[in-house]
């Protein structure tokens, strides 16, 4: 008797525990639902509010960067005048010159790093050679070591090389575009290779085997099958490399030469005096340009997916 009474009590107890738990679960779920809505709002606020402020202040009629004084297009006018070769001022000319340097360095370094990085990724995923795992580990080195270490080591490396070349051949080498680009390529290869390798790992290897079964040689297989499939990975790797190159201050500064001031170096140098408002205008223009570029690349990928599906 006592046992039969105890049993339903026991089950009832379990049921009540479950109800409390369910209530808690529902509360958590509700909070989660709200969180899913609120969290991105916060994230986007922190991401975009400062950028929006920068865009707004690029139209501010004041040399100061913290008080709104009225609408003007003067800073855009300065940039426009300089580009068309009209009346200009020294700091705007200097800023545009350094922007030109930045874009040139970033473009050349990205192109080289993307090609080499993609080749490294391919050989690491498809190839099999002794010491592969060490190369694999070394790939992450430029990502994790501090930039200043890399910059100083490059500086020492180049001066040693120049010294040796000078002593043996009499040729005098100097720092310049070459040294900056080598520095940028050196760290960009890793980023490109890591991104492309992730894409390659996701790829179905049977597709390549099928192509070869159908008589395509390796070269043809690569261009007709592998390359189109990993192209989105290559493009995102290249975009990442381009951004890193454009942003880079330390490595550029330590390996540059007269006439090669880049935009980040110019901007940091403004701390000595007050920041010129033209910098807000040029940043806004860069923002518009990169938004357009990303939009175009998304559109192109979308079109590719559409044609592939059809």
């Amino acid at each position: 008797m006592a046992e039969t009474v105890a049993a339903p009590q026991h089950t009832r107890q379990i049921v009540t525990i479950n109800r409390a738990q369910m209530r808690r679960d529902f509360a958590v779920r509700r909070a989660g639902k709200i969180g899913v809505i609120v969290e991105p709002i916060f994230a986007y606020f922190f991401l975009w509010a400062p950028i929006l402020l920068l865009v707004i202040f690029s139209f501010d009629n004041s040399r100061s960067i913290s008080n709104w004084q009225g609408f003007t297009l003067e800073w855009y006018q300065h940039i426009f005048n300089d580009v068309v070769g009209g009346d200009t001022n020294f700091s705007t000319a200097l800023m545009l010159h350094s922007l030109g340097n930045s874009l040139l360095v970033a473009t050349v370094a990205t192109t080289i790093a993307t090609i080499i990085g993609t080749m490294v990724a391919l050989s690491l995923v498809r190839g099999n050679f002794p010491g592969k795992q060490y190369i694999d580990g070394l790939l992450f080195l430029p990502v994790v070591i501090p930039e200043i270490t890399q910059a100083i080591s490059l500086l020492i490396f180049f001066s040693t090389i120049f010294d040796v070349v000078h002593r043996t051949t009499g040729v005098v080498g100097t720092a310049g575009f070459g040294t900056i680009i080598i520095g940028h390529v050196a760290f960009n290869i890793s980023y490109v290779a890591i991104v492309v390798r992730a894409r390659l790992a996701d790829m179905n290897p049977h597709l390549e085997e099928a192509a070869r079964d159908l008589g395509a040689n390796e070269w043809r297989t690569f261009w007709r099958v592998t390359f189109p499939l990993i192209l989105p990975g290559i493009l995102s790797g290249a975009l990442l490399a381009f951004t890193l190159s454009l942003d880079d201050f330390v490595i550029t500064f330590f390996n540059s030469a007269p006439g090669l001031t880049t935009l980040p170096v110019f901007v940091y140098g403004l701390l000595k005096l007050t920041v010129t408002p033209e910098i807000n205008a040029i940043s806004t223009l860069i923002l518009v340009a990169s938004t357009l570029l990303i939009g175009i690349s998304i559109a192109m990928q979308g079109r590719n997916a559409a044609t592939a599906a059809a």
Partner: protein
Amino acid sequence: MRKVIFLICILALVAVPVFAQDSSQATPPATEEAISDTGSAAATPEATEGATKWQCPDGFQGQTLSVFNWTTYVADNTISDFERLCGVKVTYDTYTSNEDLLARLKGGNPGYDVIVPSDHMVATMIQLGIVQPLDLDKIPNFANVSESLKNPVYDPGNKYSVPYQWGTVVIGYNKAKVGHDVTSWNDLFNYTGGKVAWLDDERAMLGIALTMLGDDANSTDETQIDAARDFLIAHGSNVAAIASDDGQAMLERGDVDMTVEYSGDIYQIMSNCNCQDYGFVIPKEGTNLWIDNLAIPTGAPNKPLADAFIDYILDPQVGADISNYTAYASPNQAAIDQKLIDPELLSNEAIYPPADVRDHWFTILPNTDQETIYNDAWDAIKASLGTS
């Protein structure tokens, strides 16, 4: 996908009229006038292009000169006038701090002809052999330099450097919020009405504290430096931030009521706002005097042209143009005597201090042996104020 293309079209449509408007603004003279009216802050008077009577020595036609300086630390016409007068090409590159400059030149000069290091950095560079002696025979305009700035402690006899711009560390304050005239460092250290900002310049701040305690601002005595450290920690409860050269922006935004800053920076926000809200003062106990200098690094590809450039900068008109643009003080006594400096700047005692202030100020000397003591003291201050 279609949405994305649509979005791009919209963006393009928005962007085109903006640029079209840009270019159309250049044509109507009325608008242009309005722009130049609103744009020219008092700190940037009209450039006096071609006003200098400086004559370039012969024989430099077609050569190049490489100047390494802080960003926009020259007037609009400084470089272009020199290029025109000498028939040369100047490349102008920028760096961000004395330490960056040193690091860049330590591994060998990559080809710069003229650099602009601050006082204590000149001494360090002389010690390391990074700068080479000037040819003062080729720089006759050196005679224009104010006697009180010649023969500085960091470079006796001006063998390696000549003054370029100078200034002081001052207290900038919001007159309405503080409610009284600030005259002493005690007004800052004991201020209870709100928050203040300090300058992230360890030697200047510790030098001020050492001066307050009656010691030498360049003290090498560890107990004195520690006492200065404890003084700053004890008087740091009202500190909102240790600002890296942006104290003037914090003052302008209203984040702080007082800030320790370089004189020219405070002057710039005063002229921006066109109001009577702000004041700045060199406290009566004395302050840090800093001097930026022109020097020629070892291995400069074109030393003769570099000497000519330094002579050009020391021309009264050229020097006045630069100081009128930066709102820092000109070391050029001839420019002051010939009334080429903006009178509004010249009459400002916090930029060109009266003689009695000059008795109290101190320049920072490099104390290589004590550098770590100063570093540690400053780190301890930042840590205890929670601003590091």
